[in-house]
C-alpha cells in the first residue's frame, strides 16, 4: 500500500480491573487500515473484538483502561487526548455504528432530532444546512426522508440499522467503525445492508472496520480479515487468502464449523472446548487446549506472529525452522469437556 494508512494501531492493550483480578481483554494488537479499505475483524464472544473497537474510538470507560499502545489516526495519536480535542476528530472524520440500533437510538426523539444533535455538536448549525444534510444521508441509505419525523419504534429493524449508518455518514468521515451492525437482522435484510454498505463505501471512499462473529458474512465484502482469539491477533491477511487457505488451526476450525446449503451434507465437528478464561491465561499458546495440531512445545512457548505469504499467523507451525513433533498428549477432541 503506497498511501499512508488512515489508522495505525500499534501494540494496543486494554485491561479490565476487576475484583477477581486484571483481565487483559486486548493484548498487544497491531494493525493498519488504508484509505478506503474494508477490514473485517472476526472472533468468538469474549475474544476482545468489541473492546478493541472501543479502544480505537477512545470510548473505553472504567473498569476498562488502556494498558499501552498507540492509535494513530491520520498521524495523530488519539491516546491521551481530551474529549474536547477528540471532538474535532469524532464524527467528522471517524464515526462508530453500534451493535444494537434499538439501544443506540434515543426512543423519545425523532430520527431528525437525533441527526440534528450530532450535527450541532460537531459544528454544523445552519437550520437549512442541517435539514438538507439529514435528508441527504437518509436518501443515501435508501430511506425516504419523511422518516426524519419518525421515532425509532416506527421503523423496522433494518431501517433502524440503516438510519444508524446514515447518522455515521453525516460528515462523510474517512473511517467508519461498525460493531456487528447486522447481527439483529435476518439473512435477507443482512445481505441487503451489506451490499448497501459496500456501495456507499465505493461511492464515498471511506475506510471501514467491520467487527462480526459471523465469518461467512464478510467473506465477499472485506479486503483484509483479522481473526482474533483470546485477546490476540491469531491470523491477519487478505480475505480471499484466509478463506481459501486458512493457516491457523483456529481459523481452519472456524471455517469448518459452518454448515453449507450447497454440496454434500457432511458431519462437522466444530471446535471442542471453549475459549480460555482471560484471568488465568495459560503459558504457551492460548489455543493449545483446543488445538488439533498441537505438539509439546506449544504448551510452553507462546507463539509470536509469523509472516507467511503476506499473512500473519500466530502459530508455532509457521515459526522459521519449526519442527513439529506430534504431541504425546491425546487428541483434544478426546479429553474435551463439551461446551
Amino acid at each position, binding site marked *: 500500500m503506497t498511501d499512508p494508512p488512515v489508522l495505525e494501531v500499534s501494540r494496543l492493550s486494554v485491561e479490565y480491573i476487576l475484583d477477581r483480578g486484571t483481565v487483559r481483554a486486548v493484548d498487544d494488537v497491531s494493525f493498519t487500515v488504508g484509505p478506503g479499505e474494508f477490514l473485517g475483524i472476526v472472533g468468538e464472544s469474549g475474544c476482545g473484538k468489541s473492546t478493541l473497537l472501543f479502544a480505537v474510538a477512545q470510548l473505553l470507560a472504567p473498569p476498562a483502561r488502556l494498558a499501552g499502545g498507540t492509535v494513530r489516526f491520520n498521524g495523530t495519536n488519539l491516546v491521551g487526548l481530551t474529549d474536547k480535542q477528540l471532538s474535532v476528530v469524532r464524527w467528522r472524520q471517524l464515526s462508530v455504528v453500534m451493535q444494537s440500533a434499538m439501544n443506540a437510538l434515543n426512543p423519545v426523539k425523532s430520527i431528525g432530532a437525533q441527526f440534528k444533535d450530532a450535527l450541532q455538536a460537531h459544528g454544523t448549525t445552519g437550520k437549512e444546512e442541517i435539514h438538507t444534510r439529514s435528508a441527504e444521508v437518509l436518501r443515501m441509505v435508501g430511506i425516504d426522508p419523511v422518516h426524519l419525523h419518525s421515532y425509532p419504534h416506527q421503523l423496522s429493524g433494518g*431501517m433502524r440499522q440503516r438510519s444508524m449508518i446514515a447518522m455515521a455518514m453525516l460528515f462523510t468521515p474517512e473511517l467508519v467503525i461498525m460493531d456487528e451492525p447486522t447481527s439483529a437482522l435476518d439473512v435477507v435484510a443482512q445481505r441487503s445492508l451489506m451490499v448497501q454498505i459496500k456501495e456507499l463505501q465505493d461511492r464515498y471512499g471511506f475506510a471501514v472496520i467491520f467487527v462480526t462473529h459471523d465469518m461467512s458474512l464478510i467473506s465477499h465484502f472485506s479486503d483484509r480479515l483479522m481473526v482474533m482469539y483470546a485477546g490476540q491477533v491469531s491470523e491477519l491477511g487478505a480475505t480471499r487468502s484466509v478463506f481459501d487457505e486458512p493457516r491457523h488451526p483456529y481459523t481452519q476450525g472456524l471455517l469448518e464449523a459452518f454448515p453449507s446449503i450447497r454440496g454434500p451434507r457432511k458431519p462437522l465437528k466444530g471446535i471442542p472446548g471453549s475459549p480460555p478464561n482471560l484471568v488465568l491465561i495459560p503459558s504457551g499458546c492460548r489455543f493449545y487446549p483446543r488445538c488439533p495440531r498441537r505438539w509439546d512445545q506449544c504448551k510452553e512457548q507462546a507463539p509470536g506472529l509469523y509472516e507467511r505469504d503476506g499473512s500473519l499467523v500466530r502459530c508455532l507451525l509457521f515459526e522459521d525452522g519449526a519442527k513439529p513433533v506430534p504431541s504425546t498428549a491425546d487428541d483434544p477432541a478426546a479429553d474435551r469437556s463439551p461446551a
Partner: protein
Amino acid sequence: MTERGPEPSPELLRTDHLTRHFKIGGALSRRTLHAVDDVNFSIGQREIVALAGESGSGKSTIARLLAQIYEPTSGAITYEGKPLSAIRSRRDRLRYSGQVPMVFQDPFASINPVFRVSHGVLRSLKLHRPELTARQREAEAARVFEVVGLDAEMLQRYPYELSGGQRQRVGFAQALVTRPKLILADEPVSMLDVSIRIGLLNLMAKLRDEEGVSILYITHDIASARYVADRLIVMYAGQIAESGPIEEVLANPRHPYTQLLLSAVPDPRAEPSVAAEIDHGEPPRVIDPSPGCRFRWRCPLTIEKCEQVTPVLSQLIADQPLPGHEVACHVAQTGAEVKAFSS
C-alpha cells in the same frame, strides 16, 4: 393416552388451519394482527422439522401455540390423535407439557441465576415424575446430563460458572427429564458462537437418533437447518410459503420467497458475487390483511391472481413422484418455472 387412531401412523402432532390473531391499538383504532394464519403441518415421530422465516413471520407464535402458552384463535392442534382443546384436567395438561417441552433461545436468561443448575432439573422431575424418590431423581438428573454431554458433577455448578454452550445443554437436559416426545426448540443456537453451535446441532441429531425424540427446530439459519433437519417449513408473514423434505426444497425451491432466502445465505465457499439482486423490501406486518399473496409487494413475478386470491399450500402436479413438497404460489401452481432470485 398412548393408543393411537384407527390406523397406526407415524404422525405425532398435526395442526389444522391453526390461526392466531392479536388485537392491537386502542379503543378507537382497534385492529387485528394476523400473526399465524391458516397453518397446516405435521410433525412425525423421530423427526426434526425446521421452521424457518424472517423475524415477525410467526415462527415463535407457532411454538407458543404448541406449548399452550397461547390459545389458538381458530383451528386445532392434534397431539397423538387427540385435540389439545380436549385437555381439561391439570394432570393432562402437565402430561402434555412434559411430553412437549420447550428450549429457549437465550441460555443466559432462561436459567435461574441464584440456584445451582440442578435446581431446575430436579424441580421438573418432582413435578412431572412424582413417583421417583429423591435418590432416583438425582440419578435421573445425572443420566440426562450424560446424554447432553455434560459431566454429572456440573449439576452442582451455578449458571455463571458455565459457558453459553454448556448452559444451552442444561436447557436441553431440563427438557429431557420429562421423557419428551417433541422438543420445541426456539432458536436454540442463535446466541452461541459458531465453534460451539455445531456441538449443539450434533446433540439435537443424537437426541433424535438415540432417544427417538422429535424436534421442532425454529431458526432463521437455513444452513444449520439443513445440517440437522429432515423437513423444512418456510414461513412468510404468518403463512407457510413452502414445505417439504429439506434436501428437495433446497435443491428445487419453488416459492420466490424461498429463493430469496436462499440467495441471501452467505457462503464463503462460493465465488464472490456482490452483483446479486438486492431486495429492499421489508416483511409486512400483517394487520387486517386483504386477500391476495402476502409476498406480492416483493415478488418480481406477480400475476393478476396474486392481487386477489390468497394462494393455498398445495403439491405441484409436476412433482407427483416426489410427494410432500408443497408450495403456496400461484405462479408455481400454473406449472411455470419459478426463477425469481437465483442463488
